[in-house]
């Protein structure tokens, strides 16, 4: 009987504490299905800060699906190879090798950074970017960061057409080394924007965002 009373007391205490934390800040209690802040480790440590931030490559260069399809898409390795056929390591590492080669009076070797080696290996290429039997062709399985349930049909195209900044939903992606989910991606979050952004977008495009259920749910 004592044990039961103790158990009940603890349970009650738990409930009170949970309630208190809820009232303190709703946003900080993770609700079911909300993955804000999710930041998985990716198979290749690709940096958006470097590519989108420092090098200022337009988002649509890699995620071109955003204006052609419902999905923005993850770029194929062949898109990476447009540049990385020539750029196989950081400029610092290449200069270092150049200097060392001059010192040792030899031709500089191809320097491949550890992360790009993974990209080449996935395509069955060796350190000299030549096809090699040692490296099996294996597609790159990225970890999905932004994910919405199957009963939601989100379409990138109207948002691109309305010139909504990618950052409005994906956060300051150009500052992230590893991508993190910034928005809640909850329905309330979607609808808030659809309610507030009437008339014109920040870019000055006239918009009339729909609020019908069947805009996303079908």
């Amino acid at each position, binding site marked *: 009987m004592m044990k039961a009373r103790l158990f009940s007391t603890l349970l009650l205490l738990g409930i009170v504490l949970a309630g208190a934390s809820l009232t303190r800040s709703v946003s900080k209690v993770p609700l079911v299905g909300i993955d804000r802040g999710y930041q998985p480790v990716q198979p290749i440590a690709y940096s958006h800060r470097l590519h989108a931030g420092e090098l200022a490559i337009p988002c649509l260069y890699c995620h071109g699906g955003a204006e052609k*399809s419902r999905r923005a898409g993850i770029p194929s390795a062949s898109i990476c190879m447009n540049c990385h056929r020539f750029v196989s390591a950081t400029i610092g590492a290449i200069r270092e090798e150049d200097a060392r080669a001059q010192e040792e009076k030899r031709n500089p070797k191809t320097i491949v950074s550890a992360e790009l080696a993974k990209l080449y290996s996935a395509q069955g290429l060796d350190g000299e970017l030549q096809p090699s039997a040692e490296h099996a062709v294996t597609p790159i399985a990225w970890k999905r960061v932004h994910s919405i349930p199957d009963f939601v049909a989100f379409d990138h195209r109207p948002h691109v057409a309305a010139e909504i900044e990618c950052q409005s939903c994906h956060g300051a992606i150009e500052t992230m080394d590893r991508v993190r989910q910034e928005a809640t991606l909850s329905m309330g979050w979607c609808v808030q924007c659809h309610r507030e952004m009437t008339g014109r977008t920040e870019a000055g495009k006239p918009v009339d965002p729909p609020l019908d259920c069947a805009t996303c*749910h079908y």
Partner: protein
Amino acid sequence: MRQGGKTGRTATEGPGLHRRDFLRMTGFAIGATATVGCSRGKEREVVPYLVAPEEVVPGRAYWYATVCGACPAGCGALAKALDGRPVKLEGNPGHPISGGGLCAIGQASVLSLYDSQRLRAPLRKRERSDWLSVDTELAAEFDRLASEGGRVRFLTDSTLGPSERAAIERFLSRYSDSRLVSYDPLSLSAIADSHEQTHGRRVLPRYRLERARVIVSIGADFLGGWVSPVEHTRAYQAGRRLDESTKTPFSHHIQLESRMTLTGSNADRRIPIPPGSAAMILAQLADRVARHTGAIPPWSTSPSAPLDGSTIEEIVRRLLGAHDHHALVLCGENDVVAQRLTNYINELLGAYGSGSNMGTIDLHQPSRQRVGSDAELLELWRELQDGTVDALLVRGVNPVFDLPFGEALAPLLDDLGLVVSFADRIDETAQHAHFVCPEPHFLESWGDSEAILGIAALRQPVLRVLGHTRPLLESIATWSGLFASAREQIRAHWRSMVFPRAKGSADFEASWNKALHDGWIDVGADEEQDSRFDAAAVTTPDPSEEAAPGEFIAELTPSSTLFDGRHAHNPWLLELPDPIAKTTWDNFASIAVSTARALGIEDGDEIQIHDDAGTTLSLPALVQPGQHARTVAIPLGWGRAGTERFADVGPQWLEGKPTVDAGGRVGTNAAPLITAHSAGLSFRARRVKIERTGRKRELACTQRHHTLTVPAGLARAGHEKRPIVREMTLENLRHASHAASDHGAHGHPSLYADHPKSPHHWGMVIDLSRCTGCSSCVVSCQAENNIPVVGRDEVSRSREMHWMRIDRYYSGEGENVDAVHMPMLCQHCDNAPCENVCPVQATVQSAEGLNQQVYNRCVGTRYCANNCPYKVRRFNWFDYPREDRLQNLVLNPDVTVRSRGVMEKCSLCVQRIQETKAAAKIGGRAIEDGQIIPACAQSCPAGAIVFGDMNDPKSRLSLLKRDPRHYTVLEELGIKPVVGYLAKVRNRTERAGSNERA
């Protein structure tokens, strides 16, 4: 539960679980679930292409023109490929045969692609083998046959493309004694045979129904299972236009038939005739027509007269009075005597045309859709019985199943030196084959087709072959030692044989690309051939002996859903209600109303059908209005081997019953009742007796489900019959300002203010005059919207999930009935009764007039379905989608797969609306009228369904909404449905039937 001790309870104190324990456990469970639920579930991966194919954007649909391979009709199809796999087939609007329509069978054939029971590798003596060993052995075997003068026969149906035909002929030329034998299980051989006798050319003419002003069909179900249903439906409706702008003539269609066919149900006049009397009636008709036109009939004594004088005079008057002599007589009998008489009448009527006058029958560009020869087949059968065949190759047909002598054929195949089957599964014939060399599905392989002479069409693969199947072209090339890929072979054949026939174009590559893009090219007809009519060949039939009382004629009919049985493994088609009988998951023996009454038979009674030869079949009975009293009609194509697999389709629960009986098959094969006589196969000749077995075999029939009729006793006096389908005569429509709608009569005031709908107000109009009831929309909707298959038991509990159903209404009694087909789907009412009763607002009105169903909000109270006057809402009683990974590849990723406990219904293909809007937005365009086509409207061969924006006064929809024939169903309820109907118009003088019943 704690045991022992002073405070403990013993089991004798009460039930095992106490209230407090229960509460504690529940609390813990909820807490645990909440904690676990907060954390992110399994990590999801995205795997992009390594090297993306050019122009392929993930998530975007690509359409490829191809030729439907579901039957020999050769309709043009567009395959929607999404992320590397086809998910939907639609009609190719630019195709000259099908013109944008695609039938239910064609629509469903995409599901067969993902059938897990298709063979993935060749078989040798029923054991899995590989191509190398099979090829080695077969090449040696064929070399031996060639050197030893082996007798080789190749058995196919009419589906052969020109390249395949050429390749087979080349392959067979190696043997001194070889022959290509083609037959069709649903044979129409007599039409071609009769033309050989009367016109000197063995051709199946192309019937141009769009030119016919009067059509008299004697048992030809041209809108159903006859030569080319999509082509004929489109042409038939092209000759029956009611647009205000074009005052085109409206054809008059008389159907004489002994059972209720889809065609008969659409006729202006339907005359029930005794089974087997077609030839006699044709002789009588020919005699009368000859007398009227002043021709001298090739017989001296007038044939006997099965039809009464006034009826035949009426038919003759109509035929001869046809505008510009555009009359057409069709005969559905596979009987050369009857077909010769048909040719004679058509010749007298000028239907074959002359000079510049285009006739209703085209011999210049004849059809190749069903030109198999019964005579060739029977010759082969004799050879097999005599043992004078050494090797048999079987492709596209299943003779052990679909021929009356199939049972006798099977042991002969076992004794044969070599039998090679190209079947895609171990079917009845493949069971007796030494080698099975499976072919890929038509969506996986290259192919060509020339279903109508001069219309050369290409088939292209839409995905890589699943497994290790190989096209026929490659198989026989390998065995001849000249391997070339199917594509190379087709290109070579087109370059040398097909392309040179197209006059005017010089560049092969350009016309090849055009054929690939458009799906077809015009290569012109053969040079004009002289085809003089030879009246001497025409003879009158021998008077058929009267059947003894109590005897019936078994009429074997094509299955409306399975064709000749080749689609018996397709669950969409098995669950598609028969357009007339509305049965699913079984075939039946239909008997006339009067016969049923006389014999005391009811729907679902098992009856035994036996003939003098000792053939006995047991089938569930179906009482069919409109059928002649002496007919017993049985659909063919059911009862295929391997359909035992469907026993556990649908949910498995306590009260669930299996879809097939223990160890049984889906349906019963009626092929043993086909008669094979010296002239060919006859489907309407067998005299049978029927008797009740006393057992019940309830048919899963959807006719009484979701009915709009008010139960007797609940209706207000004078309102027992609701005017759901409305009919009028052509005369009424043209000469009186007759409106179908009774607006104003029901001007209900509303408590609510009108909700303005902007920028669009979507709506739909369905023309009941154009709808033939073919049900292609039902399957198209199923494919587009991921509608699950629920199985026979669930269907019999009114739980079929089809968002679109076709209600069939009869008016009249006994043999003389009219039928109207009414597609019924969510009517998207502006004042929707379902919306008011939903406690969680899971169904709400959109700003554009759609009645939206939000699955993630629905809690499954089912109030909405109860309050829907049209009964179009469907509830997921179970988790219907099955864990079949291969089959699930057919699911449309643009539409949610619904889970258990959720209500669903037609969304007017909102995913297509959204897709068009998104594409228009990014392109900076406005949406044009006709750009959004829902799945049902796209597939309709008759063009009966029009979708559009009611806010645009110039849209085609708005035009139709103003048509005097327009009305809405149950408009007296004041719920303002946006789906409207156009009244059914029949070209007859008497008043249209008005007392319809469900």
